[in-house]
């Protein structure tokens, strides 16, 4: 595989098509728009379908229908669009339908939306947060595999920087016919062929049992089963993260996505100058890499959390260390005039200054 200079959106789209994503539907919104544009370009030549949905409600509905036939399907959006999709995301968890959702946020203010969701019922969605284009390209196949394995929607949570940064990356070729692998492993997928067999398939958030079994929809039973599958998924997915310089660190800085990339760079620089500082960059936001955070914080005097928002992931960090160590927020919302999450504070010297100030405060204690 040759390395090519590609913009994040293009690389993500190409990586999706390369792993047999054959249906995409979306509605334009910055910084998600370019992914839709690229999918519209890439899918038809390989026999796939990309729909310019009339709303985000319809975009996820179309992807839901496509996924129900066993195809690898995806949709995506940004903040408000994701908000509109919440009812479908949660219902698809209960109906146990795989889907990949590319959530290109503005800043990091949608951490709660991504990891908790605003839908209904006891559901969870795995969330993968790449910090570079190269990492996004690696996480795309994993997102589809997790979605298929657990029959559940999976989110990839990026931002403006991820979508619009160009990087030399290796992407598997997308120009091949679908291997059919994705559909073969889905005995539940609909193709109409079981009609008239006495056991026609039913794919429903209300239950799988038919009235002919003398049961019909029994939500008590179905929600219990769907709930058990959700718990099994949460326990079955190995959380992972990028950890650096945490041995003997006085201060451990936790950050994800684009900010995590800045923090890693700053921490390396501070280390080379002899400062006792380390970092943890969660890559799976759900399930959260709790053990790695605990381990990194074990020898530290304090943990700092840097996010481009008012402090959301910090809840997960606090739930991880459970009071064994102080956890301080050193981030903050940094916006541009368009509200795309591209603010003046997202700058290595400024992030360095905040980390250094926190380190001095901790060491002075």
């Amino acid at each position, binding site marked *: 595989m040759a390395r090519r200079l590609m913009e994040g959106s293009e690389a993500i789209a190409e990586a999706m098509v390369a792993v047999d994503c054959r249906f995409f539907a979306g509605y334009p919104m910055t910084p998600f728009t370019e992914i839709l544009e690229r999918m519209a370009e890439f899918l038809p030549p390989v026999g796939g379908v990309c729909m310019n949905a009339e709303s985000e409600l*319809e975009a996820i509905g*179309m992807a839901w229908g496509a996924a129900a036939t066993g*195809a690898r*399907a995806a949709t995506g959006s940004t903040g408000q669009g994701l908000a509109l999709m919440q009812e479908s995301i949660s219902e698809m968890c209960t109906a146990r339908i795989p889907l990949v959702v590319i959530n290109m946020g503005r800043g990091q203010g949608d951490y709660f939306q991504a990891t908790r969701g605003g839908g209904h019922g006891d559901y969870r969605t795995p969330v993968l947060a790449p910090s570079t284009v190269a990492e996004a390209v690696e996480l795309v196949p994993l997102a589809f595999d997790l979605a298929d394995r657990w029959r559940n929607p999976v989110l990839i949570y990026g931002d403006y920087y991820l979508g619009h940064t160009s990087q030399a990356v290796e992407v598997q070729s997308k120009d091949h016919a679908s291997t059919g692998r994705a559909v073969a492993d889905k005995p539940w997928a609909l193709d*109409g062929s*079981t*009609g008239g067999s006495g056991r*026609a398939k039913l794919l429903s958030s209300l*239950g799988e049992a038919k009235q002919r079994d003398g049961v019909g929809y029994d939500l008590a039973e179905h929600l219990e089963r769907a709930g058990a599958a959700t718990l099994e998924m949460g326990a079955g997915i190995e959380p992972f993260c990028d950890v650096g310089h945490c041995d003997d660190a006085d201060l451990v800085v936790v950050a994800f996505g684009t900010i995590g990339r800045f923090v890693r760079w700053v921490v390396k620089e501070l280390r080379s100058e002899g400062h006792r500082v380390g970092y943890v960059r969660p890559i799976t936001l759900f399930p959260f890499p709790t053990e790695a955070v605990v381990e990194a914080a074990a020898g530290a005097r304090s943990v700092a959390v840097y996010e481009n928002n008012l402090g959301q992931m910090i809840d997960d960090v606090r739930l991880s260390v459970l009071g064994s160590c102080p956890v301080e927020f050193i981030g903050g919302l940094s916006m541009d005039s368009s509200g795309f999450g591209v603010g003046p504070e997202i700058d290595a010297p400024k992030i360095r200054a905040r980390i250094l100030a926190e380190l001095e405060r901790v060491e002075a204690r």
Partner: protein
Amino acid sequence: MDTELVGQRVVLRTDRRPDDATLVDDFTPELVDVGAHHLCPGCGEPIAIRSAVECIAELGAVERTISVFGIGCYTAFSNNLDIEVLQALHGRAPSLATGVKRMRPDALVLTVQGDGDMVNEGLQEVLHAAARGENITCVLLNNGVFGETGGHITSTTVLGQRTKNTLDGRDAERDGYPILIGDLIASMGGTAYAARGAVNDAGNVARTRRMLAAAFATQERGEGFSFVEILTMCPTGWFIETQESPDYLADVIAGTHQIGVLKGGDVPKGDR
């Protein structure tokens, strides 16, 4: 007293429970799993659903049909059919059906939705599907109420129609006007076939079945969006005696939502 007089009509009180169901017959139609369904006695929806699945059988498309169900009383049939079913959220069946059809162009794809589902919650979905000329068939079971929630006003409730929250009848000034969804869809470029039938008597059931057959044939020929609106009785939501509901449908509902082929097909004599 279980009844009261509203205008010329004796209606049931809204706080009265419907009569206990008495099993008249345990006949089970083809492609329906269990004949003894959970809907009210006198409900028109089972007749409409039976008509649709019988048309699918006649077409020989049973082994390649995928239906997408909305949320309403008819959802009781989404786990009671021997054709494949994808259950949608309230209002969202047309977008799901779009995704299904795009990935399985050889399947016969239909939605089954009520007026609350299609014309209230999901109006944009069906209009966009029609405008796109999406090659699917949307079937609307129109009873002018949210039957499932207890008979509340919907966007198709006709003027003067009694519902749980318009007990004195829908009043244009207070409640606005009904949407004539079949006519609206017929006016759209992507619609190849649109018709409005009813299940209040044997003649209309037969006519409705012809409309369903024409709609499915339209899809099979790949001509674009097809639509069949079926007026169905809801004695419970209309708060009238079960045996009165077919006449109420003819007199009150069909006076506004007029029965006939609205676009495409071979418009039979006597139909518009």
